[in-house]
């Protein structure tokens, strides 16, 4: 069974590029455009890894991250925070909330694919 990546991002073109990259790397891709949808999708079908943008409508990335980490069922879920804000304080905040990695936009496509593969380990 292929592993799933949930892309949470409101900017259509970025979603487009990420889903292309993840599919190409062999992952199944789920897409949520805002925080609420992301949580609902996790509840119906938990993903193995979440690429989480911070500036989201309704519920922002930090809240989604906190929600995922507070649920023991999702303890194994990996989280990559994605942000366009370059501030160190944002980065620290993300990592404190339990994100596994923090990637700043604009990202290198190879880099983000590598990060995802590293976090999920070799395919079973």
């Amino acid at each position, binding site marked *: 069974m292929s592993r799933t990546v949930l892309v949470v991002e*409101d*900017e*259509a*073109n*970025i979603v*487009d*590029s*990420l889903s*292309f*990259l993840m599919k*190409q790397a062999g992952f199944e891709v789920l897409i949520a*455009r*805002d925080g609420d949808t992301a949580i609902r999708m996790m509840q119906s079908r938990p993903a193995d890894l979440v690429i989480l943008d911070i*500036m989201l*409508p*309704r519920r922002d990335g930090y809240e989604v991250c906190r929600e995922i980490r507070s649920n023991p069922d999702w303890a194994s879920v990996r989280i990559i925070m994605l942000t*366009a*804000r*370059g*501030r160190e304080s944002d980065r620290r905040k993300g990592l404190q909330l339990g994100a596994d990695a923090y990637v*700043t*936009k*604009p*990202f*290198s*496509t*190879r880099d983000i694919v590598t990060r995802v593969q590293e976090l999920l380990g070799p395919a079973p």
Partner: protein
Amino acid sequence: MARLAVLASWSILAVSLAYLCLLFAIAYYGDKRADAGRSIIANPYIYALSMAVYCTSWTFYGSVGRAASGGMDFLPIYLGPTLTFVLWGFLLRKLIRICKAHRITSIADFISSRYGKSALLGGMVTLIAVLGITPYIALQLKAVSISFNVLVQYPDVVMPPISSKVPVLKDTAFLVALIMAVFAILFGTRNIDASEHHEGMVAAIAFESIVKLIAFLAVGVYVVFGLYDGFGDLFAAAARTPRVSALFTSSDTGYGSWPTLILLSMAAIICLPRQFQVTVVENVNEDHLKKAVWLFPLYLLIINIFVLPIAVGGLLHFPDGAVDADTFVLTVPMAERMEGLALFAFIGGLSAATGMVIVAAIALSTMICNDLVMPVLLRLNWRGLAERGDVSGLLLSLRRGSIVMVLLLGYAYFRFIGESVSLVTIGLVSFAAVAQFAPAMIGGMYWKGATRGGAILGLSLGFAMWLYTLLLPLFARSGWLPLGFVEAGPFGIELLRPYALFGLDGMDSLSHAMFWSLAANIGGYVLGSLFGRPGAMERIQAALFVDISSHAGAFGGTSFWRGSATITDLKTLLARFIGAREAGRALDGYARTHDLNLGRLREADAALVSFVERLLAGAIGAASARVMVASVAKGEVVGIEEVMKILDETSQVIEYSHRLEQKSQELENTTQELRAANERLKELDVMKDDFISTVSHELRTPLTSIRSFSEILSDNPALSIAERERFLTIIVKETERLTRLINEILDLAKMEAGRMDWHMTDTDPRVAIDEALAATSSLLAGRRIALTLEADPWLPHVHADRDRLMQVIVNLIANAVKFCHGEHGEVSILAGQLDGRFYLGVLDNGPGVPLNDRQIIFEKFQESREPTAGRPRGTGLGLAISRQIVEHFGGRIWVEDAPGRGAAFCFTLPVSRPVAVPAPGKESQEAL
């Protein structure tokens, strides 16, 4: 016949006495209320009415007489007080403050006190005042006596016989003088302390002012509306009689006497002892002045309205000149058989006369007692006055005696001089006498350098001139001096003719006298002051008077005692002049407010000594009080150098503390400003941080897409053509977005920094709208949105930068397109005029803007964060830029609910050129 009995002499007497008793009842009630602490006079209206004691028989009878021969010449005497009152803020207020601070009781006391508590000056002023006012009192006696004698002849209108042929005891004027003396004594000498308010008297005077006003107006209204059919009719009748009509156009002296009369009455309103009494001494609250300064002139205006009409009416009624014009107020109603009105007019005249006589007599008696008799008695050490005995009884007797004396003097003047001259002439002589006080008085309030010597010299010279150029000729004209004295000059010396002194000819006698007396007075005053050396006391008093506002709080004391006196001595002294009970009460009051135990203290300190001196000054005048206190105080007056030093130091300390206060206030303000600036800086810092982070976010977003797809394209050469094209399109679009964003950020930064290049011209908004529609057509491509334009055919031009105006419209359209309904989008543009301004609104049918967001959506990057999936994304700067532009053009931009559903973004701009052609209708244009 019962009709005639109304004006029988006994009934007139009865009514008059009843009226005087009513006055006394009012005064009694006023005093009772004052004792109970519920004053009836403590308001500006009573205060202003009491000032109307200015209007005497002179006004009531004399003005009409004057108007009958001189037209409007009666008026300047009432314009002068108005002019003085215009300057109340400089003169009256300062005068009142000085007098309150020094417990000054009269004008003599004022001048004496100012020039070093000089007993000589006080005496001189008193003497001049008594000599000057005596004719004035005579005038009142003459008016009452004549009016009575005219009235008893009713129904005949006959002028009474010359009273000097009647024995004194049968002379009405003599009886009137005695009755008035009794009333003045009853009203005015109930208290020892002359600086105390005579509340009852003031109440009675105010009442009299009302009575005389109503009586005069009643006669006036009767003449104008009863005898004639209004003013127009009266003056028209007068215009047909050449002798009468001449009154309206010319004056005796071609108005040459007006400046003199105005100046004279300007001085009189503060220098007349009775005006000084009611305006300054009887003032209970300085604030009342603010209303009285216009109420009193208003009273004067009202009472003078009917003077000319009554004079005209009288002249037309008695064309043969057999009736004295001074009696018209009485004789016109009499001739018309209006006995009730005639009696009322008589009571009005009586009111005017008694009011003046009572106040003048009280004021003069205070001056005579405090500034003339007491200093002399003290100097002569009469009956050991300074050593022992209760003299409060003596003081009262002195005051009462002076009142009787003043009235008898007035009667004597009337008897010997008054018959031959008109009321107004007598009054003007008095005015000229008291005007001599003006230089010393006003100069003393503003010129520290003025000295006692100068004041004495000025007053003596001015008074001598008055005597020589005004009073002596009057005596000559009455037959008491040879007439040749006036016509050829004394001993035939032409140069010394009193009406043409030193050859000064061609002026009316009053102006002539005023010129010489004031010239001599002011000259003597100024030169005497400049070439003399002021004494210690003079310099102290000068500083205290002139700088009243800076010293009032610090030094109310009128002398500076280094030494001290025993409390027992002071108490004994006080008791002798104001009575033991009053003395005890006053000292107890002082002890209470100053937290002293007088029983245990033996020695009184300097402050208490000063307090006693001021208290005494209220009873016996400043000069006498000083002598008395000096007799018991062991120490001596502090040396001049020391006192001046104290005064200087006080001024310096006040000045210094004032500056200190200012400085600390400034410091406080600066601190506040700094704190605010700091807060603002912090805020700005946070905002800048937020802004940079937001800008960074906004720039990184398109950049992310561009980089990702570029790398994807570069790493995947095997992609299908279709996919390749799709990715390339995204890259192009995002690059455009990035470019737009950078441009807008730069624009906004320039606008905010004020470095934008604006090309402001007279712009037709129609062109900008058309260009904006063309520029946004691509936005609509492929979307189901109906865009309509509804514009007035003639739009007003605006002063704007056309490209920027277009940019605003494009932004608003783009915004509307973005948010309008997804399925049936409708965007309409309305353009026209609103309240004289150019108006443009862009309406959509989208979700609208919540009330809370209506302000902030015009901030940078504050576009609504609602999901906009599938819609073109803006930069978040469009509205912020639009606002900057519109505000730069002097307009306003806002958002409101569109009719039905959606948002309406609107702006207005000031019009540079209004529409030339009125819009006949609306034109509608379908853009899509």
